[in-house]
């Protein structure tokens, strides 16, 4: 029986630490599958100009390939070096909701994320993505400081 861990990356240092921690955890567990996820913050309820809409598909592809190159692929490479074959996913959406939805889709047993990188007013008004995930997740969440 294998265990599945989902790792939420944010492109910052805390994501790196989450990745390092999850690698360590996977080694302890032994037989373990890893899924590396990067969520691009996006809302279907924003307002756009006709021109932005016409170019949206192109921009989305660009955003996904940038995230793959900068965040997911380096993470997959470092996991491979550590002896794990992992899957990488990039998806648009609300960070906390999307991570939770993906953990269900992928049947992940737990999620490992870095602590929040938002600060100031935004955090005060909307809470951090990490806090939202911890509050609403359907599987155990480990927050790495």
């Amino acid at each position, binding site marked *: 029986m294998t265990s599945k861990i989902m790792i939420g990356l944010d492109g910052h240092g805390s994501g790196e630490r989450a990745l390092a921690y999850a690698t360590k955890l996977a080694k302890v567990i032994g037989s373990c599958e890893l899924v590396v996820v990067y969520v*691009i913050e*996006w809302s*279907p*309820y*924003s*307002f*756009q*100009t*006709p*021109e*932005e*809409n*016409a*170019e*949206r*598909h*192109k921009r*989305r*592809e660009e*955003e*996904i390939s940038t995230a793959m190159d900068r965040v997911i692929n380096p993470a997959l490479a470092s996991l491979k070096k550590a002896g794990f074959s992992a899957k990488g996913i990039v*998806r*648009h*959406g609300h960070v906390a*909701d*999307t991570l939770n*939805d993906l953990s269900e889709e992928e049947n992940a047993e737990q999620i490992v994320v870095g602590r929040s990188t938002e600060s100031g007013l935004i955090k005060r008004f909307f809470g951090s993505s990490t806090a939202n995930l911890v509050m609403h997740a359907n599987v155990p969440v480990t927050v790495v400081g």
Partner: protein
Amino acid sequence: MKFYQKVMLSLGTASALVSPAVAQEAMTLDEKVNEAFAAFTGPFVNLIFAPFPGTSFPWIVMWLVIAATVFTIYFSFVQLKFFKHAISLVKGDYSDPNDAGEVSHFQALATALSGTVGLGNIAGVAVAVGIGGPGATFWMILAGLMGMASKFTECTLGVKYRNEYPDGTVSGGPMYYISKGFSELGLPGGKILAILFSIFCILGALGGGNMFQANQAHAQISGITGAYPGWITGVIFAAVVFIVIVGGVKSIARVTEKVVPFMGILYVGASLVIILMNYDQIGWAFGQIFSGAFSGLGVAGGMVGALIQGFKRAAFSNEAGVGSAAIAHSAVRTKEPITEGFVSLLEPFIDTVVICTMTALVITISGQLISDPATGLYVLDGAHIATVDGNTGVALTSAAFASAFSWFPYVLAVAVVLFAFSTMISWSYYGLKSWTYLFGEGQTSELVFKVIFCVFIVIGAAANLGPVIDFSDAAIFAMAVVNITALYFLMKLVKQELLSYVARLASGEIKKFTH
């Protein structure tokens, strides 16, 4: 040195000679622009608004109403049956999470709405009620409800036959569905109709999407600051639009796109407050609307006068059957083109049935329209109903709101300027798409159109309301002539989509995603 001196000297003389003339001309510049414009556009306007022989009923109004009725019946009241489903689609209930990040139904609707919600709802309704009386509102609402079916038809086709380019961008609209749809059905003349549509769309973009906006924005601003020449407003507007569409300063457009929805909500909110403050008059206002609809209550042309005004302004405001929305809606990412058709039918509802009705109710309740207490009929001042301060167009709406909140004209001025601006940005895109359909894509060709567009802003702000509004209407309705002709041939393609979708919805093949 000598040459330089000569130039300086001649410049000096020239300016000395010209300055008094300039001062004189500046005073009459607006009038001159107006006169030349009216003379130039007259024949076109007369053709589009030609009445049926022996009546005062313009054939074009009949054309739009018949089309909306045909689509309503042909799709067996799609606007009622799928209203709830449309809301469900906008909420994202049927959106595949794997498509997250693409243009959502909500975004396509919001973009299309910001192109239509604007001065038509504020100034256009005032024109309708000012000439046709409160009764025009009834016909406006009816036209809005029927127009939902026209919008459904054109927007489904817009998505179905859009062009998707290898770089991932999309272009869609009537010119694409007319040419592709006709060749799919083996019908001749698709290309000619598509070219005709594009020509009228460019004129519509310069008229209703541009000059009317500039004109009314100037009317609103000068109503607050005091009179000053219209070309000044025009030049400022043109400069900002130029920066956005030519200079590529997208941030201005982005800010407007975000502020406009809130202005819309604020406008509806303020209307509701005024209506509720006068709750004892709501019954009376609806009474005026209903009795005016069938008797005219003394307006020019009686019932027919009210009906023509209502239908005209509804069509101008929600653009159902015109084809412009099909351009805006075609960017949505969906496997089912018809879903965008369902979503688009909300547009005339929000635009006409909700927002236009608010304006009409506020104007009626405010008592700006003068009626004779003895007969209950409205007092005429020429073709218009006499108003308390002699206002027409956007000034009438402004005065109506000011009767409840003295500070509201300032808010309205900001709203008008922003609405005008966002409508101009939307229409510059519609016009550009038609332009590139005709002349091909390319920086020079696009720049030529954008410069022409900006020049027309100045003309629009300087001309009088009458000729501008006539030309705007004529150009937009000319689009509808071509678009609706094509829709009659293409509507069976939409029917196929509808039947297939309904069957798959019933069988459970199309189902909600759990989020």
